[in-house]
């Protein structure tokens, strides 16, 4: 077959491209929601990192600092928090928000002997930063409350479970 050199694609190619576009359009909903989950996971890990770094630098917002100082918490001394795993479970369809509900769970470890209250406090900060990161990434900060709980994206609604210390 001799091409005419006029910059035109062959009919077979057009046919192929057409079919591909149709397939792409059919699968785009599926791809979009999967992509959203991947983005959510990346954003969550980012947020968890952010949250756990607070324990390493032990520099907190002033009111938090004052609260810790009054309670004589040991978290004012830098401690290392190791993130073991970040995972999520699909909790099924939420009829209130008409979206699928995803719950994140963080597994962490600290070598220091901290009280349960202090661990809760670190855990809450990790979860807060996780949700904040999700809200910023999906640009839904206005749709949620001050604690970013729950966070929304186009297809999902995200919550967090308490951090599991291992």
């Amino acid at each position, binding site marked *: 077959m001799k091409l005419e050199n006029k*910059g035109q694609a062959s009919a077979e190619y057009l046919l192929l491209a057409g079919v591909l576009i149709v397939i792409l359009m059919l699968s785009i909903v599926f791809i979009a929601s999967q992509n959203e989950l991947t983005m959510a996971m990346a954003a969550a890990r*980012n947020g968890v990192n*952010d949250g756990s770094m*607070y324990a390493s*630098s032990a*520099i907190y*917002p*002033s009111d938090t600092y004052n609260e810790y100082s009054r309670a004589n918490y040991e978290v004012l001394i830098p401690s290392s928090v190791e993130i073991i795993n970040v995972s999520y479970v699909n909790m099924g369809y939420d009829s209130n928000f008409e979206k699928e509900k995803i719950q994140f769970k963080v597994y962490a470890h600290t070598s220091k002997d901290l009280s349960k209250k202090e661990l809760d406090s670190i855990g809450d900060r990790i979860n807060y930063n996780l949700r904040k*990161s999700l809200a910023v990434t*999906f640009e839904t900060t206005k749709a949620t409350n001050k604690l970013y709980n729950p966070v929304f994206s186009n297809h999902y609604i995200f919550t967090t479970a308490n951090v599991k210390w291992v």
Partner: protein
Amino acid sequence: MDNQGFISVEFLFSLFIILIVAAGLLVYSQNTINSTLNIESDLNHRLILDNVANTINQVDSQGEFYSKYLKLPVTDKNYVLKLEKNKLTIEYENKKGEMIVPFIDPYSTYKMYPGHIYEIEKTHEGKILIK
């Protein structure tokens, strides 16, 4: 190709896809960069705090009249270091952190600011003087 300077439809199509992907990643990367900068700043100030606390401890563990000069580094934040009894704190932009300096007995509460040079001295009374 008819050499008329038009870009092909395929090229436009792939450009379009790349743009969509990039737009999606833009917010995410912005978020990542922001949080990294934030962490960097926190750790930087923690290091300054540790450094000053170490210097004070060092002076205190030496004999009387021992003194040491210390220049506080300038960062992009306007921080204040405060030495109270047994405690050194750093404060900037509504953030606060502390470092315990045990057995340190300063004459009063001292405040230190970035860019200044301070002389930390152990006096004959065994107290810490900063000027």
